[in-house]
C-alpha cells in the first residue's frame, strides 16, 4: 500500500517534481564541501583574517541577539495582543527590513547616523560616532535580522489562549506575572525558533555591514566580509572561511529545528487512554 508510506500525495510523481529544487539548494553546498581538502581548511583557519573575523562575528551576533530579544519581545507582545490599525501598520513596518535589500538598509543607516545624517550631528555633539565602528556592525545586524525574531515571537504570542491569561490574572497575577509565568513559557518554542533564525541571519549579514560599518580587520570585518576580502587574494582561503561559516550555520540549524519541537512536545503530549471516568465523592 503506497498510501501507508507517504499518504495520498507521497507518490513517485510528487518526488520527481520536488527533486529540482532540492538539487538547487544542496548542490552548491556539496560543491563547497568537496572543493577543499582538510589541509586547505587548516590553512584557512590559520590565515590572519580568520581568527579576528570569527571572534568579531561571535561577539557582534551575540550582542545583536541580546538587543533583539530585549527590545523585540515587548514589541512582539504588543503586536500579538493588539488588533487596532496602529498595530497592523507597525507589523508592516517591522517586516520592511525583510523585503528591503540589506545594502539599502546600510545606506539608510548612514543617512541616520552618518556625519550629515538625521541623528549623526546630535550624537556627534555628545561624542558618539557610530559609523565604521563595531557598534555599527551590531546596529546593521539588529536592523536586518530583528524582523525574524519579532515575527516568530509575535506568532507564538498570538497562539497563547487569551483565556489562559485572564485565568492567570483572576488567580492573582499582575500583568507582568501573567506574561512571565504563562505567556512566555507557552510561547517559548516559537521565541527560540525566531531567535535562532535571527541569529543565523545576523551571522550572514554582509551588505548593510559593508556600507555602514566598513571592512576593517578586528573591528568591523565579520566572517562574511573576511570571505569577501580573502576572495580577492586567495580563493582557497575564501573557500576555507566559507566552509567554517557554513559549518557554524549548520550547527545552528540543528537546534533551530529540534529545540522548538522538543519544547512544545512537553505541552502537547497526547491524552492518556483509556479515559479515567470522574469519580464524585
Amino acid at each position, binding site marked *: 500500500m503506497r498510501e501507508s508510506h507517504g499518504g495520498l500525495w507521497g507518490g513517485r510523481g510528487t518526488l520527481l517534481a520536488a527533486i529540482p529544487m532540492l538539487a538547487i539548494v544542496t548542490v552548491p553546498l556539496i560543491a563547497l564541501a568537496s572543493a577543499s581538502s582538510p589541509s586547505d581548511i587548516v590553512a584557512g583557519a590559520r590565515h590572519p583574517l580568520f581568527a579576528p573575523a570569527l571572534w568579531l562575528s561571535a561577539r557582534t551576533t551575540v550582542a545583536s541577539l541580546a538587543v533583539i530579544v530585549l527590545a523585540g519581545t515587548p514589541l512582539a507582545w504588543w503586536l500579538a495582543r493588539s488588533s487596532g490599525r496602529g498595530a497592523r501598520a507597525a507589523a508592516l513596518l517591522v517586516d520592511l527590513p525583510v523585503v528591503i535589500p540589506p545594502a539599502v538598509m546600510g545606506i539608510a543607516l548612514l543617512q541616520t547616523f552618518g556625519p550629515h545624517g538625521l541623528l549623526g550631528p546630535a550624537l556627534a555633539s555628545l561624542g558618539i560616532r557610530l559609523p565604521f565602528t563595531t557598534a555599527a556592525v551590531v546596529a546593521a545586524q539588529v536592523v536586518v535580522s530583528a524582523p525574524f525574531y519579532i515575527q516568530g515571537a509575535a506568532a507564538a504570542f498570538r497562539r497563547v489562549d487569551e*483565556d489562559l491569561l*485572564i*485565568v492567570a*490574572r483572576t*488567580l492573582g497575577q499582575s500583568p507582568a506575572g501573567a506574561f512571565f509565568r504563562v505567556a512566555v513559557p507557552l510561547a517559548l518554542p516559537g521565541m527560540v525558533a525566531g531567535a535562532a533564525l535571527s541569529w543565523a541571519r545576523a551571522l550572514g549579514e554582509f551588505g548593510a555591514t559593508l556600507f555602514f560599518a566598513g571592512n576593517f580587520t578586528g573591528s568591523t570585518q565579520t566572517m562574511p566580509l573576511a570571505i569577501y576580502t580573502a576572495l580577492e587574494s586567495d580563493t582557497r582561503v575564501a573557500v576555507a572561511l566559507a566552509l567554517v561559516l557554513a559549518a557554524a550555520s549548520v550547527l545552528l540549524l540543528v537546534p533551530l529545528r529540534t529545540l522548538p519541537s522538543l519544547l512544545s512536545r512537553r505541552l502537547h*503530549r497526547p491524552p492518556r487512554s483509556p479515559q479515567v471516568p*470522574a469519580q464524585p465523592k
Partner: protein
Amino acid sequence: MRWHARIRARAGSFDLDAAVAGDGAPVVLIGPNGSGKTTLLRVVSGGHPPLAGHICVGNHVLYDSDGGVCLAPEERRIGYVPQGYGLFPHLSVLENVAFGLAAARAGRSRVQRRTAAAALLQEIDCGHLAERLPATLSGGEKQRVALVRALLSEPDLLLLDEPLAALDAATRRDMRGYLARHLAARGKPALVVTHDVRDVHALEAPAVYAMEEGVVVQSGSPADLAAHPASEFVREFFRSA
C-alpha cells in the same frame, strides 16, 4: 450576597448590551453560539474592556463607567473557568493548583504552597494526578482540577463557561452532580453558561438569562421560560429536556 452586571461592550461583529443579576444561587446563561455569552463572562472577569456599565458583587464595585472605577482582574475576587478549563499546559496539576494558591495565600513559601496544593488534590481524589501534565488528564479530571483551582482564592463570584460541554455522556452526568453539590455547598454567587437544559435543573438555578446577538431576550425562572418562551432558541432549549 447579591451581584449584578449591566454592561455594553464590543463583541466582534455586534455590540453586547446586557444586564444580569443574581444572589447566592447559581444563575444560568443560555444562548446560541456567538451570542456574546463568553464575552459577557470575560467582561465581568476583567479580561475584556467594556464600553460602559456597572458591575457590583455584594458591595464591592468592580466596574463603574460613571464613577471611573475599573478594577484589574486580580482585584475583582472572581473565579473564572473558561471553555476548555484553562489549565496551564506547561505546569503539572500540582503546579496549576499551587498557582491558584499564590493569590490566596500570599507570603507563603513555594514549598508550603505545594504541600497545601497536594492536600487539596487529595481531598478531591486527584492526588494521584499531581505530577501529570493537563494534556494527559481526562475531561472530568481537568474539570475538577480547574474548579478546585478557581475556588482556592475563595472568589465572591464564580464564572463557569460551558463547564460540562466537552465531556462524554457518562462523565457529564457525574460531573453535573459534582458541580451542583459544590456550588450548593459554597452558597456564593455563580454564573454558569450552558447548552444543556439538564444543567439548569441539576444546578437548581432560580434564574435563567437567554442571550441572542448580544442582548438578553428573556430572563426569569426556568419554569417561566419553558412555559412562555420568547424566542425559537428558548423554545428549543427547554424542549430538549
